[in-house]
């Protein structure tokens, strides 16, 4: 199957005229327009707002999957197409009006599970506990983490569509000079929060023939060790003696995605990696096989993830600078940027001749990680 259309709505610190569903609908209409497909051709909707979207777009009777997150939602959409249940599936997501209590961190960062809530856990601390183990084991440094953040934030600084456009450029020293949030993470090592919507349209290969510029899903898979933010985030946790440690969540998914695509890490031209915190990029580079275990820090320090490097990463600015509108849209936005890279339509940081893109969602602090690979060529 193919991606026929993608769209990001305006992204902003706040979109006071919208709630999550209404901005997801704006994204949906934009992605359908991008695909050149009329809304009434849609016969499946995936996303937490799927039923409301089906109602408002007048799609009934149609298939629906209330899947959250980006890549899992796309993989569910793909399964609706592969099993012949649907021809045109809309994956839409939005976040607005959620983070209103500014004295606290965003609600999706502080789920109140009984085993963690009393210790003031939130996403920054959860990911920090994974980062600390990596630093103890491999000697990964705050400067290497800061290099990731400076690279991605500078990508967003350049991007006119980013919420934090024009705030940089950033050096690793700028990151290290920002106030401490949860050691080793400084403020600028962390994602921002914002509001926005987005959507992707998936179609059968047959339907893709009539589309302007279809992009092809080469492979994808998901890894999870359990619910996010409810138990201690332990790098070395192995539920079975023969399982990978939780710190390598996503490694299996990446292997599967590469095997489906018949490709390897060296074939990837651009990696739209999910960047909730700077360290997570270093971890994913290792888990996905772009470098050896423990080499992620030196890999980023050598400039490999910067524009023009061996593997440009998160080229729009990611959650650190482009946008971070709740747990669903922000994950889908990695796929949208990958699609824009393969089309050659990025206004900034376009990777010349990009043919293969890898995107990711999640991270070790949340005990899940998803991988999706897209290509220009029909497989």
């Amino acid at each position, binding site marked *: 199957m193919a991606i026929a259309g993608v769209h990001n709505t305006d992204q902003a610190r706040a979109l006071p005229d919208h709630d999550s569903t209404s901005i997801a609908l704006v994204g949906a209409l934009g992605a359908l327009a991008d695909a050149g497909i009329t809304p009434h051709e849609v016969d499946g909707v995936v996303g937490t707002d799927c039923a409301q979207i089906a109602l408002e777009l007048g799609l009934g009777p149609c298939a629906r999957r209330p899947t959250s997150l980006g890549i899992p939602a796309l993989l569910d959409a793909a399964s609706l197409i592969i099993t012949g249940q649907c021809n045109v599936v809309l994956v839409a997501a939005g976040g607005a009006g959620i983070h209103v209590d500014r*004295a*606290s*961190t965003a609600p999706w*960062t*502080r789920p*109140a599970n*009984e*085993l*963690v*809530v*009393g*210790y*003031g*856990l*939130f996403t*920054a*601390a959860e990911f*920090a*506990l*994974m980062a*600390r*183990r990596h630093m*103890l084991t491999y000697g990964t440094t705050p400067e290497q983490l800061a290099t990731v953040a400076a690279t991605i934030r500078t990508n967003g600084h350049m991007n006119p569509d980013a919420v934090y456009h024009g705030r940089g450029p950033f050096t690793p020293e700028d990151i290290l000079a920002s*106030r*401490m*949030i*949860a*050691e*080793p*993470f400084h*403020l600028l090592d962390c994602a921002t929060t914002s509001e926005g919507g987005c959507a992707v349209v998936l179609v059968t290969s047959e339907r893709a023939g009539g589309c302007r510029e279809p992009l092809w899903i080469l492979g994808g898979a998901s890894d999870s060790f*359990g619910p996010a933010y*409810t*138990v*201690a*985030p*332990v*790098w070395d*946790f192995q*539920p*079975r003696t023969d399982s990978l440690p939780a710190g390598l969540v996503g490694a299996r998914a990446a292997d599967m995605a590469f095997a489906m695509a018949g490709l390897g890490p060296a074939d990837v031209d651009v990696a739209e990696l999910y960047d909730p915190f700077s360290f997570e990029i270093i971890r994913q580079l290792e888990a996905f096989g772009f470098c050896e275990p423990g080499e992620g820090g030196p890999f980023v320090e050598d400039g490999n993830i910067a524009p023009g490097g061996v593997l440009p990463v998160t080229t729009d600015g990611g959650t650190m600078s482009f946008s971070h509108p709740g747990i669903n849209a922000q994950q889908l936005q990695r796929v949208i940027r990958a699609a824009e890279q393969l089309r050659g339509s990025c206004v900034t940081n376009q990777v010349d001749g990009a043919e293969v893109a890898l995107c990711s969602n999640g991270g070790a602090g949340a005990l899940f990680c998803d991988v999706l690979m897209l290509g220009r060529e029909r497989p």
Partner: protein
Amino acid sequence: MSILLPQPVGIPAPRPSLHSEAYWDGCRRHQLLYQRCAECGYRGLGAFTVCAQCHATSPVWEASTGTGSLYSWTVVWRPPDPSFRVPYAPAVVRLDEGVWMMSAIIGCEPEKLHDGLRLAVEFHPANGEITLPYFAPARDGAGQ
């Protein structure tokens, strides 16, 4: 640098669930409990009703010695909720029974935290109902 302290009463506190009541009851009487599969001895991550190894449905609660080692930690300066007093140090503790648990370190300066630091449990109230297990550096000879 200041000494890490327990959080004041009034922070967002745990709400016990059906399968964790025994754990919180133990904390209330200052006894740290952990779960072990009665069939194969597996120790899980968090509260469980099925053993992840042998899938027996008979986990039992055992008393821990309350000693362990520091496995990972962070020092938080921007809390998720304004009722938390900073800095505080969420930590993963490896109990001597081989169980990982989430807690926070108290009773020392943040700079003194290091991999493998020997720790002993201490109990402090989170509200009128809930007592939280914290860990402090073990006193000389304790938990060796």
